[in-house]
């Protein structure tokens, strides 16, 4: 029972991290119409930024404050150099180009940070565990991580429902051509959205870095899971990504507990079930 409770917490925490990454992916697809296979690389970037900046500043939160703007700028640059050539191209060419980007990013990672796994320290004041019940303790950092992810999710929700740029994003989500017809400078919007998507993936990578170790290829697992989440939630739907990510997190955590060895199979099975019942995902338009 208590193990189940811990797994529930773990599942929610993992789900929220995945949500951050997946929300970036779904935004980029929903608005730019781009299938970005390199999205996982941005998660990896975040993880390694956490590693480097934490060792410089000594604190994961200072590292976050420095790293997120860096990731944003990086995303904007990638959009400007590569992605913007893809808007009028078909899915295949997007797959090809972003796949090629993965090759490059992975190799750059190997050059800069090497092939060995690294650990990112949890800040001292968050390093303990907290007693939840008489016999159950839970690491403080994981709780804080859950809290931060929730706050970020809330900020995103408010941005999207309550601000001018959010309205543009929602408009773009439901009808991309229309935005252009209305005369918005979609180039700027696209660049901002891509950079924001990059930042979200990097934020997920940075926040999760002290919990998991940092290793090459860390982004690819997240990429596939994010795609699954986006498909479950419905393409382009932030709300769908939120529900989908929590479902995946919990399915994964309980899968590990109940059917070790089949946990990842369960995640895909969940997606298959959702697609059979709702072919456009939970919140997608058919």
């Amino acid at each position, binding site marked *: 029972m208590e193990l189940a409770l811990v797994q529930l917490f773990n599942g929610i925490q993992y789900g929220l991290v995945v949500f951050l990454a997946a929300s970036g992916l779904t935004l980029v*697809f929903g608005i730019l119409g781009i*299938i970005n*296979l390199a999205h996982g690389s941005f998660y990896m970037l975040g993880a390694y930024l956490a590693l480097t900046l934490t060792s410089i500043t000594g604190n994961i939160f200072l590292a976050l404050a420095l790293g997120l703007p860096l990731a944003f700028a990086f995303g904007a640059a990638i959009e400007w150099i*590569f992605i913007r*050539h893809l808007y009028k*191209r078909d*899915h*295949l*060419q997007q*797959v*090809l*180009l972003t*796949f*090629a*980007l*993965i*090759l*490059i990013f*992975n*190799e*750059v990672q190997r*050059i800069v940070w090497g092939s060995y796994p690294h650990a990112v320290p949890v800040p001292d004041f968050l390093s303990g565990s907290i007693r939840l019940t008489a016999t159950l303790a839970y690491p403080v950092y994981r709780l804080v991580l859950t809290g931060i992810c929730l706050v970020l999710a809330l900020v995103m929700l408010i941005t999207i429902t309550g601000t001018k740029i959010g309205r543009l994003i929602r408009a773009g989500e439901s009808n991309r051509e229309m935005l252009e017809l209305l005369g918005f400078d979609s180039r700027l919007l696209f660049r901002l959205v891509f950079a924001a998507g990059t930042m979200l993936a990097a934020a997920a990578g940075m926040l999760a870095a002290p919990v998991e170790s940092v290793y090459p290829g860390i982004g*690819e697992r997240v990429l*596939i899971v994010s*795609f*699954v989440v*986006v*498909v479950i939630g419905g*393409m382009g739907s932030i709300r769908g990504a939120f529900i989908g990510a929590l479902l995946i997190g919990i399915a994964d955590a309980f899968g590990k507990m109940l059917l070790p*060895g*089949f*946990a*990842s*199979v369960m995640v*895909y*099975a969940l*997606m*298959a079930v959702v*697609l*059979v019942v709702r*072919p*456009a995902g939970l919140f997608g338009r058919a």
Partner: protein
Amino acid sequence: MLRRPHLGVMALLLILLGLVALLPIMPPDVAGPYAIKFATRIVIVAMMVVSLDLLIGITGLVSFGHAAFFGLGAYGVYFMSPEAESANVLIAFPVAIALAAGGAALIGAFAVRNKGFYFIMVTLAASQMLYALFHDTRIAGGSDGASINIKPELVIGETSLLDLSNRAALLWLSLGCLVIVYGLSFWLVRSSFGHVLQGIRWNEERMRALGFNTYIYKLAIFIIAGALAGLAGALFAAIDGFVPPELLGWRQSGLAIMMVVLGGVGTLYGSALGALVYNALEETLKNSAVVGPQISDHWPIAMGLLLIGAVLAAPQGLAGWLPRFVPRIGGTNIKTAPMDCAVHAAPVLSVAGLGKVFGGLIANDGITISFEPNKVHAIIGPNGAGKTTFTNLLSGTFAPTAGRIRIGDVDVTSLSVHRRARLGIGRSFQRTNIISAFTVEENCLIAAQAGPLAASGVEMALRATGLEDRRDRLARELSHGEQRQLEIAMLLANGAHTLLLDEPLAGAGPEETQRLTALLRGLATNHTIVLIEHDMDAVFAVADTIAVLVNGRLIAHGAPDEIRADAAVREAYLGSFELIGASP
């Protein structure tokens, strides 16, 4: 349509194949064991990539999980290989192919329901699921991979004809298989089955409306492609006798897509070229003696940049780029024999109490009407009256929420679009819906193929619509009016006796309108035409009966003169009717 492949490039590829076949008998300092193994790998990967092009390039299904079937083929050979002796190729390979085909059938049954991005993601997830299964469990060596101790032999009776542990034997067998896979794929694409697949790629909605069960076609090609990839995988397992789970993973699938795109989508030979160029490039970039240690140590960066350059500079791939230097020879070889026109007996199309509700919106409400055969029936009404919904209900695109639809005595209410098309209901769409990459004749051929008339329908349709002298033009080169004519020709070739035409005159100039209305009048001698149209002059000139829809309800149905005089219609539809009433 797949045109005849470029002869110059084909000759080049054939010479290459011949050279590869000679590798094992060259002196070892020209082609050592490594070169033979490398060539074998390229040949096998080319086979896999050609099978993927059947999905991506021919049918338009971008599968991101094709490596799963390649991997299943490889694991199939592992499962069939005993510990201490060699498996027989004649047993192990068919089992491996069957395993891959079975996996493809299972995954495809779900996946081909989806389109575009969802298809990509479902195939990706399904293959990752298989990867997780082989990686995380011990059904075959788990994450360490599975080893085949003794490689398979091809045994007939008691004699061993080929021992795959011999490099030359494996290379020759692989080459033979590549030629067979390519030949089979090429034949398949040029067959009538293949024409339907290409039609699906360009315009699936139209293919369904013509009466093709596109689901079955897509599933069939998905299974065929999976089986061919399985054969490639089975051969691959014999290279090193080692099958790692990564063979099924998304990276392999991604690489395969990359080779297809690099080579040129939808040409088959292009993807083989892509496999060759990609692997040769990788091998070169890894070789420090050729490119220097700076590059060879970090070859993925160079590879990535080259690929990005390729996708930006030559979006059509190598197959689109190479032939620029050599003129094209030959064209399509489709032939049809002109035959007599089939005459239909059109049954009555009738609906009773037909209703459709979208969420809270009542689009059609209790419509009861029957359309007499061999007449032109127009449906008019203000914008949002539910005219297009009504057509969609008749054609089967939507299922009604109430009421029944009958063709003659047959209740078709629950039949799908393609089943109704086979019963003779043809429809055109508001936006012209033809297969623009096909010629006029090819469009009609594909339509005829779905119907009862076969090739005789093509000539009849071309003659009836006056497109005979346009038959070899690409559909996209036609004028707007001619495209509309072609759309109707496709319905005729399809054997439709009832034509549902949604605004066939929209966007047509005065001359085109005249030609099209004359065409409709002519067709009405042996077809029932249900016409939705905004051009009131044309409607009143061409229609035998007019039905008026307002707010989803049928408020009047009768001859043009009766409608003109109808008080309820005048009231509901004042503006435009005043005009017509004023100048009868």
